[in-house]
């Protein structure tokens, strides 16, 4: 049965995609209404898939707990935390003191500590860059990082005069902006190609 469902789902996805795309260019009222309706449905569906994703995550970690290996303890901790948080929020609402306590004293500190680890990793990686990739571009990258950082942060309460006033602004508005626009133009072409492949049914990631 699934074999003949694929062309139907491709036709629906293509049709909806074309209407949404045309809605960006043709300001006819009925197309704009239809586009808004389809986008609302997409947002609702995305919300529902979050529930499916969480149940899937529970199943993955439930299996790890059941397999009794060295990862089982962390999987068990995840399940207890997930069920516990869901229970607290279901019982006392999202803005309750208990829910905010979980957010402020567990979630935010945990994520902040990972952010701090990332900062350390980046400093270490930048220091290692010339060792692992000895190219002119690596040197330019490192010199630019040093200039931008030293121009952005005060040293003992004072900014480095020329670097902060002139050089930093020039780097951000000329070479960095040019590079970013070059990358974005290339990516925009890639996005258009991906979109066209979806709209023409060449790629259909929904046929399982």
């Amino acid at each position, binding site marked *: 049965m*699934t074999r003949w469902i694929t062309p139907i789902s491709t036709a629906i996805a293509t049709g909806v995609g074309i209407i949404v795309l045309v809605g*960006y*260019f*043709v*300001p006819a009222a009925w197309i704009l209404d239809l586009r808004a309706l389809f986008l609302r449905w*997409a*947002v609702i569906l*995305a919300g529902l*898939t*979050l*529930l*499916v*994703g*969480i149940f*899937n*995550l529970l*199943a*993955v970690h439930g*299996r790890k707990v059941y397999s009794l290996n060295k*990862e089982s303890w*962390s999987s068990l901790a995840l399940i207890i935390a997930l069920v516990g948080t869901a229970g607290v929020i279901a019982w006392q609402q999202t803005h309750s003191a208990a829910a905010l306590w979980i957010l402020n004293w567990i*979630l935010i500190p*945990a*994520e902040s500590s*990972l*952010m701090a*680890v*990332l900062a350390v*990793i*980046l400093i270490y*990686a*930048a220091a290692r*860059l010339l060792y*692992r*990739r000895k190219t002119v571009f690596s040197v330019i*990258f490192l010199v630019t990082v040093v200039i931008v950082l030293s121009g952005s942060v005060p040293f003992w309460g004072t900014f480095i005069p020329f670097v902060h006033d002139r050089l930093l602004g020039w780097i951000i508005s000329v070479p960095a902006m040019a590079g970013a626009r*070059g*990358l*974005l*133009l*290339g*990516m925009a*072409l*890639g*996005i*258009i*190609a*991906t*979109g*066209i*492949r*979806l*709209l*023409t049914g*060449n*790629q259909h*990631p*929904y*046929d*399982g």
Partner: protein
Amino acid sequence: MSRIDALGLGFILIFAGGMLIFHLLIRKWTVFSFRSITGLARLRQRVLSSIEDGKRVHISLGKHSLLSQEGAAALAGLRLADEISRLSALSDHPAHITSGDAPVSILSRDGNKAVYRNMDHEERFDPCAAYMSGVTAFSYVAGSLAEVVDPQTAVNVLLGGFGSEIGLLADAADQRQTLTTCGTSSLAGQSVLYAVADQPLLGEEIYAADAYLQPQTTQTSAALRMQDIFRWMLVVLILAGIAARFAGVL
């Protein structure tokens, strides 16, 4: 319709028409060769050799929403994930796919299932092989790290919509000395990857990844050819604009 809207629609229609023409040309006459991208050059061989060694490929598709502008990067990652899943489907350790966005995780599971169905081995499909490892940026990274550092993982493919948090995954993969192919659509993520990873994919290279894994696909080749043509057209237009500005025409 305003003039700029007409121009945008015309741009997309010409792009689509060009892709169709190249698709027909490639199918009839010739196979175009691709320029070398170091980050993708050894991916196919390493995926196949990891399967032979009884090891696993881990693919991570990022956390950006499919409904956002970065959704196209997740779709490019999904194409690559489908291809790697196809290559490793009948091995002892099929590919594992993690993501931080629920719709992307469902699509990756769907694609994985389709691979097994097309091979008439649907009974071997593992519903836990593709999953959402976390909802926020760092919880997703923490969940995916378990797969990245798993001793069974020989190849890590990090391709999709990541922010700067991709640095944590790329660094962990680097510490484990697995082959890592990584690319993201965000500029912050790309700058982090440039420092952390050996051969990061930059700019539009992430949208070309599946073509390097399966070079005989004519649709992908046609899309890449049109991207190259339009890129050169844009370069010429920008240079012409600069020249016109200098000449005082604009």
